[in-house]
C-alpha cells in the first residue's frame, strides 16, 4: 500500500473517532437517561450491560480522555505508556471499587472540578511550567497515580447516581470497572496512533506548546463548569 493511501485511511479513521467522541460530548457527561432507567430495572448481576456502560463512559468521557492525552503526549516508548496508564488504572480502580462498595459519597461537582484541574496540571507540566517557574518538578508518576484516585471517585459518583440494587452489586461494579479499562484501551489506541503519526510531522514540537495550552484551556473550562455547578447546587 503506498504511503499516501495509508495516510488517507488513517486520516479517515481519525475523523470517524473524532465524530464519535463529539457525539458523546453532545450527550453530556454522565450516564444518559435511557441507560439510567435501564440500569434501574436490573435486578441481580448483569455483566454485559455494565461492561458496556463502563466502556461507553470512558470512550465518551472527555475529562478522562483529555487527561490521558496529556499523560501520554510526550511518552515515546511503549514501555512508558504502559507504565503510566497502569498507574492511572490502579489509581482509579482503587477509588471506584472502594468508593462504591464503601459507600463513600463524594460531591460529584467537586470531584469533577478536581478532574478538570488534573487536565490543567498535565498541560502545565507538558509546557515545562513547573521546571521553569519553580525549578522543581513534582514526581510525574506519583501525580498520575494521585489524579487517578480522583478520576476513580468521579467514576464512582457516576455509578452511585444509578440506584444500584445490593443484589449482584460487586459483580456489577467490577464489570463496570473492567468496561472502563476496555474503553480506555480502545480510546488510547486511537490517541496513540494519532500522536505517533503527528510526531513524524515537522510541526509537532512547534504545535505541542499550543496543543498543551489548549489542553489547559479545556481543563480550566471543566473546573469553572463544575465549580459553578457546585455553587448553584448549594445555594
Amino acid at each position, binding site marked *: 500500500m503506498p504511503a499516501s493511501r495509508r495516510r488517507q485511511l488513517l486520516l479517515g479513521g481519525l475523523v470517524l473517532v473524532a465524530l464519535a467522541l463529539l457525539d458523546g460530548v453532545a450527550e*453530556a457527561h454522565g450516564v444518559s*437517561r435511557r441507560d439510567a*432507567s435501564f440500569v*434501574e430495572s436490573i435486578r441481580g448481576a448483569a455483566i454485559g450491560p455494565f461492561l458496556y456502560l463502563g466502556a461507553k463512559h470512558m470512550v465518551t468521557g472527555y475529562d478522562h480522555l483529555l487527561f490521558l492525552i496529556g499523560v501520554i503526549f510526550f511518552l515515546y516508548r511503549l514501555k512508558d505508556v504502559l507504565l503510566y496508564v497502569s498507574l492511572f488504572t490502579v489509581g482509579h480502580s482503587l477509588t471506584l471499587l472502594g468508593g462504591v462498595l464503601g*459507600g463513600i*459519597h463524594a460531591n460529584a461537582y467537586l470531584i469533577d472540578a478536581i478532574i478538570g484541574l488534573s487536565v*490543567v496540571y498535565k*498541560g*502545565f507540566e507538558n*509546557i*515545562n*511550567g513547573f521546571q*521553569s*517557574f519553580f525549578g522543581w518538578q513534582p514526581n510525574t508518576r506519583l501525580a498520575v497515580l494521585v489524579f487517578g484516585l480522583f478520576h476513580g471517585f468521579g467514576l464512582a459518583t457516576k455509578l*452511585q*447516581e444509578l*440506584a*444500584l*440494587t*445490593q443484589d449482584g452489586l460487586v459483580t456489577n461494579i467490577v464489570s463496570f470497572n473492567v468496561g472502563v479499562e476496555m474503553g480506555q484501551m480502545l480510546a488510547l489506541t486511537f490517541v496513540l496512533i494519532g500522536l505517533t503519526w503527528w510526531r513524524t510531522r515537522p510541526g509537532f514540537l512547534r504545535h505541542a*506548546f499550543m496543543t*498543551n*495550552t*489548549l489542553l*489547559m*484551556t*479545556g*481543563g*480550566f*473550562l471543566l*473546573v*469553572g*463548569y463544575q465549580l*459553578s*455547578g457546585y455553587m*448553584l447546587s448549594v445555594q
Partner: protein
Amino acid sequence: MTDETTGRLALAEQRARIALAAAGAMLVAGVLLMAAVLPAEYGVDPLGTGKLLGLTSLAQANAPTGGGGTAAEGPPPESLEPVRPGANTAQTIPLKQDSVTFKLGPFEGIEYKYRMEKGASMVYSWTSTGKVRFDFHGEPQGAPKGYAESYEMSEGQKASGSFFAPTSGIHGWFWENLSTDDITVTLTSTGFYASGIEFSADGQKPHELPNR
C-alpha cells in the same frame, strides 16, 4: 555575551511564554464559561450572550421537567391548558394540613400523593436525612395506567414550594433513597386536597386527613 546570561535570558523568555499561555488559557476558558457554558448548562446568563444566542432555552430544555421512565406512555388525556392563578384564587373545599414521615432503607423508594381538583393549591416542604432522587409528579384522572406528568425531578435533601394542580387527579412525590444508610423523609403541607395516598412495596395505603 556569556553562556550564563544567554541561559538566563532564555529562561526569562520561556517563563514569560508559559505565563502568557497559562493566563491565556484561563482567560479563554473564563470567557467560554461566561458566554456559553453557564447559559447553556445552568441557565445563568451573566453577559446576556445566552439570550442572544438562544442558549438559555437549552438549559430550560435540559432541566428535568419532562416525564421520566414512567411518563409518556400514551397521549395526555385532556388538553392541558396551564392553570393561571391570579393574586387570589378562591377555593371551595376545606383547608387541610398534613405531616408525614417515611423511613427508607438503602435504595428503597416510596410514593405519596394527594387527591386534588384542578386549580386546587397547596404549599409544601419536605426534608430528608440523606440524599434522595425525587420526582414530583401527577397522574390526571382517567389517564391511561402508568401515565404521569413530572413537575420537578431531581436529587437532593429538600424541596419546598407552592403548587397549583394543573389537572384533577393525584399529585405528589416519589422519593428514592440513594444512599446505603437508612434515612427519613418528612413532608409537611397545607392545602386544598381531599386525602393522601401512600404507595409502597406493601401496596396502597390511604391517609385520611382532618380538616384544619
